[in-house]
């Protein structure tokens, strides 16, 4: 069974459009994340979210917004898409532990291409 899944795997769209990427985890984790990986393979955190708080990386444009309908899902909405948004987007999840930070499980990624 897939632990962290994302849809779609590929997304091609025009500049200016609004799109969403869905993420689901069946691990029972309480924290989920979105990362962006650029063409040079550099991975950058965008958001961290659990049922108590949303933490946003200050470099993320407000055109990007995470939405969580329930604990197992964290979708990424992107408004007014720009060419520079083209990248691979990864969802991840982890369980909160008293010992502090811990392992994150990643989804397979969604390759977004903006034309």
């Amino acid at each position, binding site marked *: 069974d897939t632990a*962290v899944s994302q849809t779609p795997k590929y997304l091609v769209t025009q500049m200016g459009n609004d799109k969403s990427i869905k993420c689901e985890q069946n691990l029972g984790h309480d924290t989920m*994340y979105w990362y962006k990986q650029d063409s040079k*393979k*550099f991975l950058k955190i965008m958001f961290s979210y*659990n049922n108590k*708080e949303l933490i946003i990386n200050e470099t993320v444009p407000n055109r990007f917004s995470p939405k969580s309908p329930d604990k197992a899902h964290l979708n990424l909405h992107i408004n007014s898409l720009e060419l520079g948004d083209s990248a691979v987007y990864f969802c991840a999840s*982890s369980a909160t532990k008293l010992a502090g930070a811990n*392992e994150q499980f990643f989804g397979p*990624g969604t390759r977004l291409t903006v034309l």
Partner: protein
Amino acid sequence: GESVGLHLPTLSVQEGDNSIINCAYSNSASDYFIWYKQESGKGPQFIIDIRSNMDKRQGQRVTVLLNKTVKHLSLQIAATQPGDSAVYFCAENIQAGNMLTFGGGTRLMVKP
């Protein structure tokens, strides 16, 4: 700003040899480090982690070493196999919300 980085962008090794991938970090407040492996077209896969109260941790064929004095992290892979070919990332936890900061990645190529 403070960041995680890697010394070698590409590492080529012979099958059966040991591999060492290095990572430098500059944030002394980091308390947790992870190594991930990313194969082409896939998401990062957890390999091994270590907390700042340890200096060494071993897994199956992998060992992570943490030197807090010089802020250096390394991943050692024993008896490297073709299936180990991938991009390897180190990451550290320095932000609230368990958010990880990743290094730039090292591509490991295993020659048969």
